[in-house]
Structure formats: structure tokens, C-alpha cells
């Protein structure tokens, strides 16, 4: 009898939470800052995650666990073996599966009471507005400049908050754009860097825990926005330096002249963001430097014939330790001041991991007067594929 009364009273007080949900969220419910009211707000909330990778992993896991009622996951990629070092949503058995679907399965298992929608698609100017409309908060966990400007512009056009996070090696940036009266991404960075000037994570690397921390901060800010509690990061850029282990904060102002959110908006629809970012072709962020090339097979044949070729490795010393072609190591960044180490009368073949940095090196050396210099097409990755499979790929 007592049990029955309790249940009835419980149902009355909770409206939409089942007894199972009450148990699941009990550590939220006993906090006055969340309580039943807050938990119901979470249940009603609709959050769209752009990217289900490094940042998306803690975001998805914590928002699902917290009981955010509807989660959308946008990703066109498939799970790769090199993702597992940081993208903790995925297991080894997920390799080769679409990320959005693998993440949906994991999050639904974590919390079957919420709705998780997978969008296995690339976010584009054509689909962004329609996709964003069904959600209250957009969380940017993507990995490239065109998509970041696209997410920003779509959020400003629709008046939706954009919980922003980005990472590089040991450093992360977090803030919230698109709040009423607050700045947008274009206020902070009016223009993207030209392609190739800023290395991507694939080139620059990233410590696996870093997206865990930055994505968790984004998750916390998302939950605070939903609950309407505390002081959020609008107008503040939070910078996290994992090496120094510290946070710094910078004031972010709304730019009155911002073409997107300023007084005189000049951008009133979504544009071509690849063109805006100077990227030709969607998956080619580096400029196509036209330099003379040699294929791995040609190089192998010439070395086997005993020809006098100098192999110039322009990677970093720690990459040389992973694998090498016994080349002379001068990291790209040191090339200008170490160019005297090279004999311009000898034929030189420059290489890196994928052929991108070495193309820059060849370009630089040609401008410096070197004439007999070639770029190893596809770098050490192609060497591993075409010549010597015992050379590890990384």
C-alpha cells in the first residue's frame, strides 16, 4: 500500500520521468541546481553534435548519460584504426563502420531512454539549415575551417547557440558563439588561415586525452545552457594548455562590423565555405604545389641501380624514429637555415609522410636555386604501399 502511494505521488510529481529514469538520474535529482525541473529540461532538450570524433566522443557520452532527450549525430566518416587512440565512443570492432551509426549504437546502449539520430552525411550549405532547425543547441566538434564557418553562419542565421571547441596538439579553445548579443566565430576570426599554413591534427598530431577534456567542457557548457544555470562562456574564450596545465581566459567581443552578426549584415545566406577557405576539392586542404615528382617504384629502381641520390627527409625527428628511408633529416621548419647542409650539385629526392611537406620543401629549394630535386610522390606512406610493406604507416 505504502509503495503504491509512493508510486502515485512519484508519478504526479515527475510528470514525464519514469521510475527507472528517476533512479538513473538520481544524482542529478538530489542536486537543487538540477532537480526534477532541470532533469525535465534535459529530457526536452534537442542537441545536434557536428562530428562524432575526438570532441564528439565525450560530448555524446556525457550528454546521453545526462539524459538529453534528443541527440543528433552528424558525421560522414567511418571509424579508422587511428581514431581509437582518442575517440572513446568506438571499440576496435567498430573499425570500418560509419561513425554516426557506431556512435548511435553506443549511446543508445548507454541510455535507451533517449532518442539518438544518426545523420551519415557531410554537413553542407545545402543541408545545414534544415538539419539545425530541429535542434535547440548546436555543438561544433568538427575538424576543419570550412565546416566551422558553415556551422557558425547557420547558427547565426537561425539564432541558435553554437558550443564551440577546437584542439591542436596540447591546446584547446572553448567558447559559446551565437548567443543573443554575443559574438560569433567571425567576430573572433574574420577569416580562416590559408590552406597549408596551419597543420591539421592528422599532420600535427593530438594527445588523446586533450579532446576528452575540451569535449567535456563543451558538454558541461551545453548542459548549463539547457538548465539556464551558472555563468556560461559567452564572450569569453577559454584556452586550455595541457602541457603547462592551465587555463587562460580572453575577453571576446562582438564585432560591430562583423559581416555575419554585426549591425550591417552582409552575409544573409550560406555560402561556399570551401571557396571561402581557399580549399580546392573537399578533402584537399593543402595547396597543390606543382613540383617535379618521382614515384616510390622509380626511386626504388634507381637506388637498386646504385645511382647517387640524396634522400632528404623533411619530417620531424620523432617521426624519423617511427620509420625512415635512411635519409638525411632536416625538418621542414629548419630547412631555411640548414640549407647549406645540402649539395645542390647532387640529385635530391625529398620525402615526408604523405608528400605534402616535402612538396613545400622542393618548392622552397627550387626557389633557392636547386635544380636537381624531386618530391617522393605519396611519401613514406606510398613507399610502404608500393615498395616495402615492412615500413609501418602512421
Amino acid at each position, binding site marked *: 500500500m505504502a509503495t503504491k502511494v509512493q508510486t502515485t505521488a512519484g508519478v504526479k510529481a515527475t510528470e514525464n520521468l519514469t521510475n527507472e529514469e528517476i533512479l538513473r538520474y538520481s544524482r542529478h535529482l538530489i542536486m537543487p541546481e538540477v532537480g526534477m525541473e532541470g532533469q525535465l529540461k534535459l529530457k526536452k532538450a534537442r542537441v545536434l553534435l557536428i*562530428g*562524432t*570524433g*575526438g*570532441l*564528439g566522443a565525450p560530448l555524446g557520452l556525457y550528454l546521453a548519460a545526462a539524459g538529453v532527450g534528443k541527440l543528433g549525430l552528424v*558525421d560522414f*566518416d567511418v571509424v579508422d584504426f587511428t*581514431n581509437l587512440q582518442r575517440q572513446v565512443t568506438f571499440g576496435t570492432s567498430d573499425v570500418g563502420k560509419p561513425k554516426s551509426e557506431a556512435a548511435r549504437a553506443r549511446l543508445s546502449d548507454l541510455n535507451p531512454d533517449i532518442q539518438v539520430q544518426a545523420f551519415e552525411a557531410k554537413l553542407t550549405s545545402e543541408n545545414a539549415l534544415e538539419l539545425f532547425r530541429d535542434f535547440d543547441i548546436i555543438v*561544433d*566538434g*568538427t*575538424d*576543419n*575551417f570550412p565546416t*566551422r564557418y558553415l556551422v557558425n553562419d547557420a547558427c547565426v542565421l537561425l539564432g541558435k547557440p553554437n558550443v564551440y*571547441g*577546437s*584542439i*591542436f*596538439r*596540447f*591546446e584547446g*579553445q572553448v567558447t559559446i558563439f551565437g548567443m543573443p548579443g554575443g559574438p560569433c566565430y567571425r567576430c*573572433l*576570426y*574574420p*577569416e*580562416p*588561415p590559408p590552406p597549408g*599554413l*596551419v*597543420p*591539421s*591534427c*592528422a599532420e*600535427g598530431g*593530438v594527445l588523446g586525452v586533450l*579532446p576528452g577534456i*575540451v569535449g567535456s567542457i563543451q558538454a558541461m557548457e551545453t548542459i548549463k545552457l539547457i538548465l539556464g544555470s551558472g555563468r556560461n562562456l559567452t564572450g569569453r*574564450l577559454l*584556452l586550455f*594548455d595541457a*602541457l*603547462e596545465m592551465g587555463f*587562460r*581566459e*580572453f*575577453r*571576446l*567581443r562582438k*564585432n560591430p562590423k562583423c559581416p555575419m552578426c554585426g549591425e550591417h549584415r552582409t552575409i544573409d545566406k550560406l555560402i561556399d565555405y570551401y571557396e571561402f577557405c581557399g580549399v580546392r576539392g573537399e578533402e584537399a586542404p593543402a595547396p597543390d604545389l606543382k613540383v617535379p615528382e618521382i614515384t616510390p617504384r622509380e626511386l626504388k629502381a634507381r637506388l637498386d641501380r646504385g645511382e647517387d641520390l640524396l634522400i632528404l627527409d623533411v619530417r*620531424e625527428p620523432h617521426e624519423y624514429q617511427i620509420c625512415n628511408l635512411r635519409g638525411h633529416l632536416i*625538418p621542414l*621548419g629548419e630547412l*631555411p637555415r640548414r640549407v647549406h647542409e645540402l649539395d645542390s650539385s647532387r640529385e635530391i629526392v625529398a620525402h615526408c609522410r604523405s608528400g605534402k611537406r616535402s612538396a613545400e620543401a622542393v618548392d622552397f629549394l627550387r626557389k633557392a636555386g636547386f635544380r636537381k630535386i624531386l618530391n617522393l610522390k605519396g611519401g613514406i606512406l606510398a613507399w610502404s604501399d608500393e615498395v616495402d610493406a615492412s615500413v609501418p604507416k602512421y
Partner: protein
Amino acid sequence: MAVKVLIPPPLRPHAGGQVAAEFSARNVAEALGQLTSEFEDLKRHLFTEEGRLRSFVNVYVNGEDIRYLAQEKTPTKDGDTINIIPSIAGGKP
């Protein structure tokens, strides 16, 4: 007059791996000028060919964006910290 310039991780490879450098400088332009003459490779990352600060590189003096102060003429004094914050895009891959 030592002004501390903090070098962000993406630019450290172009600054001999250094986290920070100190200069005696009366304003931001002087500090960045000394920084880029010490590390020449940094120049193209911070400035356009016309010598203007690139628009994806933000500079802060003691936490305040110089765009809202006196730009590169923003005065600096002993003990000030200059932060260089370039845009980074990483997250998903």
C-alpha cells in the same frame, strides 16, 4: 622593460620549440618585430606579405584583444603578457 610573449603550440615549431620569449618593447609592434627577427620563419605565419597582422591571428595584451585597444600600437610595459592566439580547427579526425 621585459614583456613576455607567449607562443602558442601551433607556432612553436617555427620558434625553436619555445613556449615564451621576453623582450623589452614599448608596444606590441616592437615586441612582435623582435620576435620575428629572432625567429624569421614565424614572420609569414603572423604577418601578410604587406606586413599586416594576419586576420586569423589574434593578439591579446593582458587578456584584452588589441583590436579593441590601439592595435599594434598598443603600449606595453614591464610585466605585461602578450598572447598570440591563432585559429585552430581540430576536433574530429
